[in-house]
């Protein structure tokens, strides 16, 4: 009987009995895995996050991230001590996430996979990437009204930027206690871009506006500035832009600087091809795995199953929707004063979520006019949205961090 008792203690059953809510978290992990694998919702991040949730909530596994308190003094321990006392997941979390290392590394990979060409060819459309950041700041105010601390409100609002690494980076600095739900909300809504953009467009854009053909507008009012050496422009642009932004919004440099560096090694070409491969594949993939797993491991029943998480999920959706609407309204205002009309779908792609938002906008445009390929135009505001959300994050961090 004593042996049976010891066997029972060895298994997880006794601990599940003590914390039955961990079963709910395991079910949530299964749901997220299903969405990532079967529904293909951002599988590259959702699968590691979901698996992180799963292993963190196996009772007795010791893979959950422990919140830093004055009692455990975890933030003052060495990496070795953290690994020894709290396990390898905490070692990864406190060395890679708490230091803010991984989001800039992912931004470097994003930069290496980004082509600034469409934005440089349609520079004026970059403004709509600014308008689409309005959701971030609107939700910041709403979250304060709902009773969130202003730092938490800033971290919540940044979900409206539709940029996973930016949201995570901001949350790490402003509200690390909300990192798990914010990451889940940000990536879930990014995955739901094909549903959310058509939904907002349906209620805010007329059929006549959806039929505005961008190429016909270009023929009627041609772009006066032809690029005679795109390759050189693409190489100098990240250097020049990075230098100016570093002076104006230095707090956004960890993100924008790494994004532009990644882009530069891509644009240089064969001479830096090995760096490009490392940034866009090796480092990017490694960073993605550790980011997903460690963020998932922060989501235990104690930190996730509460009213705050629900408010974050709801607030994130509102931020996302307002950002899309902000871009659309900006285009509509522009069209009132300009002879050259712009399809409001271009404004809807002002939030980051590159390139999915552009693809979705292109599909909607093609449904209304089979010749209206707006992908190149949408990419312009879409890419500027990445810069815009990183700048917005920089402003929030400088004021609240």
């Amino acid at each position, binding site marked *: 009987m004593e042996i049976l008792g010891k066997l029972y203690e060895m298994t997880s059953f006794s601990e599940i009995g003590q914390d039955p809510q961990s079963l709910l978290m395991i079910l949530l992990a299964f749901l997220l895995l299903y969405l990532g694998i079967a529904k293909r919702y951002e599988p590259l991040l959702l699968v590691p996050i979901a698996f992180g949730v799963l292993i963190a909530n196996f009772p007795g596994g010791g893979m959950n991230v422990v919140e830093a308190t004055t009692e455990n003094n975890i933030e003052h321990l060495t990496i070795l001590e953290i690994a020894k006392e709290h396990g390898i997941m905490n070692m990864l979390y406190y060395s890679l996430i708490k230091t803010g290392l991984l989001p800039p590394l992912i931004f470097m990979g994003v930069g290496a996979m980004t082509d600034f060409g469409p934005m440089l060819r349609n520079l004026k459309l970059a403004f709509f990437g600014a308008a689409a950041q309005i959701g971030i700041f609107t939700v910041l105010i709403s979250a304060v009204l709902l009773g969130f601390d202003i730092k938490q409100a800033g971290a919540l609002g940044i979900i409206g930027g539709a940029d996973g690494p930016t949201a995570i980076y901001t949350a790490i600095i402003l509200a690390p206690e909300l990192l798990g739900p914010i990451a889940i909300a940000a990536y879930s809504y990014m995955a739901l871009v094909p549903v959310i953009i058509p939904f907002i467009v349906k209620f805010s854009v007329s059929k006549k506006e959806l039929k505005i053909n961008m190429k016909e507008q270009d023929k009627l009012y041609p772009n006066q500035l032809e690029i005679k050496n795109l390759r050189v422009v693409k190489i100098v642009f990240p250097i020049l832009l990075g230098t100016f932004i570093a002076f104006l919004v230095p707090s956004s440099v960890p993100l924008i600087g790494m994004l532009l560096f990644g882009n530069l090694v891509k644009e240089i070409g064969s001479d830096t091809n090995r760096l490009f491969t490392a940034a866009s594949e090796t480092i990017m993939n490694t960073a993605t795995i550790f980011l997903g797993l460690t963020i998932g491991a922060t989501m235990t029943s104690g930190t996730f199953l509460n009213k705050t998480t629900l408010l974050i999920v709801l607030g994130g959706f509102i931020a996302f929707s307002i950002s899309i609407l902000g871009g659309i309204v900006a285009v509509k205002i522009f069209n009132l004063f300009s002879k050259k009309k712009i399809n409001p779908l271009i404004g809807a792609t002002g939030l980051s979520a590159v390139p999915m938002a552009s693809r979705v906008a292109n599909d909607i445009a093609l449904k209304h006019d089979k010749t209206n390929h707006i992908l190149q135009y949408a990419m312009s505001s879409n890419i*500027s949205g990445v810069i815009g959300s990183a700048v917005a994050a920089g402003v929030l961090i400088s004021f609240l961090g």
Partner: protein
Amino acid sequence: MESNLNNAVVLFGVGMLAVFFILLLVVILGNILIRVINKYFPEKNVRNEKPNVGIDESIRSALNEVVRKVTHGKGQIRNIEKIK
């Protein structure tokens, strides 16, 4: 709560202005850069690309990009013709 709200409203204004200003800078810098490079470093084969009447600009730039990638920046497209 009230001071938090005031700060949030101020951040709304400052944040949106900062984002617009930086993207305005992107537009201005991009324009200046393109003009300077057009004047001092124009690509030699620009004239050769002109006769490609009927080839969409986005298709042409996509093909240029593919050739540049495959040849590691050494190859250039001089002419594109539609095969009937």
